[in-house]
Each structure stands twice: as C-alpha cells, then as structure tokens.
C-alpha cells in the first residue's frame, strides 16, 4: 500500500483526533460497500439489515427533491438523531455546498461523515467549505478529475462521482467515472514536463497531479453515486473502477426496498461474478421508474466549482 504522509504523530501516545489519516481511514473501511440514502429510522434499520456499510440521513431522497423543487437544505437535527439512534453503522448527512455552518451543526451532532452535496441547493456559488477546519471527515462529488482534485485540496477525504441524483439513470455516473479514471490513466503515462500542463488544464494543484502520476490513483477513495437503481448498475460502477457505491432514490423508490437493498449489497461484493449477479438480480419487483437526461430541467451535477 502507499502512504503519502509520515507515520509519526506529534501528539504521541496521548492520541490525536481528526487527522487526515483518521478521516481517510473511515473511507477506506467502506470500500466494497453500499451507502444508502434513508429518510426515517425504519428505513435506516432496513438498510442496516440489508448489509449497508453506512447510511445517509436526509429528509427527502433526491427523486423527491427533484419532484418538489424549492430550496433543499440540511436535514432537521431531530431526524438525524433519530437515525443515529436506530443503527450502529456510520451515519452520514448532507450540508449545502459552501454552507460551513450547516457543517458545524452536523459535526456537533456527531455524524460520522458530511457530504457537501450538490443535491442540496448551493449556499455559495464560488467557494466550497474549508474542510480542513473540521474534525469530521467530508465526502464531495466530482464530474471530472480537476473537480475531484480541487475538493481534495480543500480537505475532502472521499470523492464520489456525481452522476445525476434522483434519476435512476446510470448514464451520468458512467460518464463521470470514465472522465475521472480515464484522466488518471493518462496522467500515469505523462512525463514530468507534461504534468505542469495537466495541472493547468485540470485547474488542480500540481503536487496532487504529481502524486497521481506516481501512485496511479487518487490520494483518497473514489466511490460512485447518482443513478444506481439495480444490482447490475452497482456492479457496473465497481467494474469501471469505483471502490464503493452510494444508492439514493434507487432503493426506497423501488417497489420492494429490502430485497433490492440486499441484492445491491451482494452485487457490490461479488461485482465480477456474473453468476452471482444473475442470481441476485432475479425477482426484485420493479425498480424506480427513472428519467432520461433530456427530460430533466435541472442538472445537479453542474453545481460545484
């Protein structure tokens, strides 16, 4: 394995919290897993029973946010606490892009990860949150490698491809994963002089570009989100190179959430085994209906800078 920072800690035996390694460490533990959007403690229990490695606590799943319109904000703390009390797995929650006070509140509530998310209405159209200022780790979305590296340079410890949340359509997630991973592959082939041009083109810090050239991967885990509705979708994301998946509306907007949730967990674990994928894909009832990209008027993926 690669380690980008020194192993020594100035805090010594007493112990230090909120370090980069501790924050990234939890993301490492979720690799190979499924993080599910839930809106009630009951749904959180179903998610945990189905084998989710974490839940995302929110008031409305993205499909409903899309349908209802209006301003989407951080969830009610009472609702987040209800979900925290219902499960033993990590609980994540969303803050608006740039809304560092929502993030402060989520940290005070003791959530395990904050998603600075384009699914909520952005609070700042220029700046993202300074994520180094927090003990709690952050995940951020990205549509391309430059965006991913800008978020990492602000302190994100996990990147998820954005996809297009609430559509049940995998096409944008595939585009974003291919963008990110394709450029990583090209950078590993670049010579040292070309890396300067890559940094300029990606609008990303040169040291992070150089690190990718050396290690062949992002310095933090890359997960997939936005449009996963079936076990096959989850396995597709994993085979393309995602290290875990977020499933939002896809589970609790389907006809029968529990079997679908279990099937997506198994598909994510055994993502290279078509026989297991065939077995778990059977008889799940109808998936969420989903929508085509030409039918939507607001692309959440365009939020973020």
């Amino acid at each position, binding site marked *: 394995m690669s380690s980008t920072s020194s192993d020594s*800690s100035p805090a010594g035996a007493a112990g230090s*919290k909120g370090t980069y*390694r*501790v924050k990234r460490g939890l993301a*490492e*533990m979720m690799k*190979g897993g499924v993080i599910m959007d839930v809106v009630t403690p009951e749904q959180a229990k179903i998610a945990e029973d189905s084998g989710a490695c974490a839940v995302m606590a929110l008031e409305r799943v993205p499909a409903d946010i899309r349908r209802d319109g209006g301003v989407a904000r951080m969830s009610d703390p009472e609702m987040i606490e209800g979900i925290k009390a219902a499960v*033993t*797995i990590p609980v994540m929650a969303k803050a608006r892009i740039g809304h560092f006070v929502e993030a402060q509140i989520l940290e005070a509530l003791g959530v395990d990860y904050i998603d600075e998310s384009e699914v909520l209405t952005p609070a700042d159209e220029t700046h993202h949150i300074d994520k180094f200022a927090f003990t709690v780790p952050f995940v951020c979305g990205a549509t391309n490698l430059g965006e991913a590296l800008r978020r990492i340079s602000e302190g994100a410890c996990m990147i998820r491809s954005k996809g297009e949340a609430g559509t049940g359509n995998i096409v944008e997630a595939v585009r974003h994963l291919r963008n990110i991973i394709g450029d990583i592959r090209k950078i590993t082939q670049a010579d040292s002089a070309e890396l300067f041009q890559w940094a300029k083109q990606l609008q990303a810090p040169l040291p992070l570009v150089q690190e990718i050239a050396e290690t062949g991967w992002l310095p933090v885990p890359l997960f997939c989100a936005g449009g996963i509705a079936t076990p096959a979708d989850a396995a597709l994301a994993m085979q393309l190179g995602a290290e875990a998946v977020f499933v939002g509306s896809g589970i609790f907007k389907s006809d029968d959430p529990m079997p679908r949730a279990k099937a997506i967990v*198994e598909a994510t674990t055994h993502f290279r085994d078509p026989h297991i994928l065939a077995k778990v894909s059977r008889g799940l009832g109808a998936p969420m209906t989903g929508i085509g990209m030409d039918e939507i008027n607001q692309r959440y993926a365009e939020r973020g800078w």
Partner: protein
Amino acid sequence: MLEQLGAVTRQVRTPADLAGVDALVMPGGESTTMSRLLDTAGLFEPLATRLTAGMPVFGTCAGMILLADEVLDGRPDQRSFGMIDLSVRRNGYGRQVDSFEADVAVAGLDDTFHVVFIRAPKVERTGDTVEVLASHEGVPVLARQAQVLVASFHPELTSDRRVHAMFLDMVHTSAATAA
C-alpha cells in the same frame, strides 16, 4: 503490505476462494455487514471449520469483533467465530469524531508502533489464555491466542510492516509445526 513481505495474497469472497489459502486476514469494515455477507456467501461454516482446525488468522478492527468470544453492543443476529477468549465492545471508542491515532509499545518490537483507530472496538475482558501484546491507556489493542492474532487498530493504514511481519512469522511457524 503482506506481498511486500513476500507473501502471496488473494481475496476470499466465496467458499471456493478459501481452498488453497494457508492463512487469513479478516480486515476492517462494518462487522454487521461482514457477518451478513459471510452468511449469504455461504462462507461462515467453511470458515469456522478451517479456523477450528487451526488456520492462522489475523483480525483487525471489525475482524477482531468477528473472532471474539463475546461481542457487546453488536446486533442480536450478528455472528462471531469465538476463536479468541475476549470480550469486545463495538464502537467502544466512540464515533468517527472520536477516532484517533497514537503510539503504543508492542511486545517484541524495539520502537513504538504508530496505530490508527477508526470507530474502533474496545477490549473489555481478556481470558487467561490470551497474550496481550500491546495496550493503549491500559486497554489491550493487540492480542494473541494460539493461531489467532487480533488488533483493534488498523496496521494497514500506516506504512510500518512490523505487525504484519509478526503475523507472517506465526503463519510460518504454524506451517513448520504441521509439516
């Protein structure tokens, strides 16, 4: 990391993967999730058989929970293999905001070992047959019983290979004894 130390590794997801494996690492993750997947993959029983027969195993964090005799604050349907006589409390060190790193002294190693705890389990009792190899603030964090090594921290998140080397020594000794 084990490959850097000369071992050949593979991932075990199904009972078929388990054949031909001499020793096993049970890694970190969510123990409730892992327990469920062990059942659905039909891996729990074959694995229990191999472990009872003496296959060396190294459980880190969630892996430690899966190997412990007694799990506190687990889910009622959560299963563990009961391969080491200790009681462990899930998330005993708290939530992610309480996760931390520190230096600990490890028996048999000259210098301290830097360890990372992520929503770590806390050992609350160890049996007489368990050898405690490292502690943090009086609580065991690395322990061994026969062919079972467990850690509540994540040795794979730092670049120090000494604890992994300790496990490979166990594996080699076990193979030599069996031969």
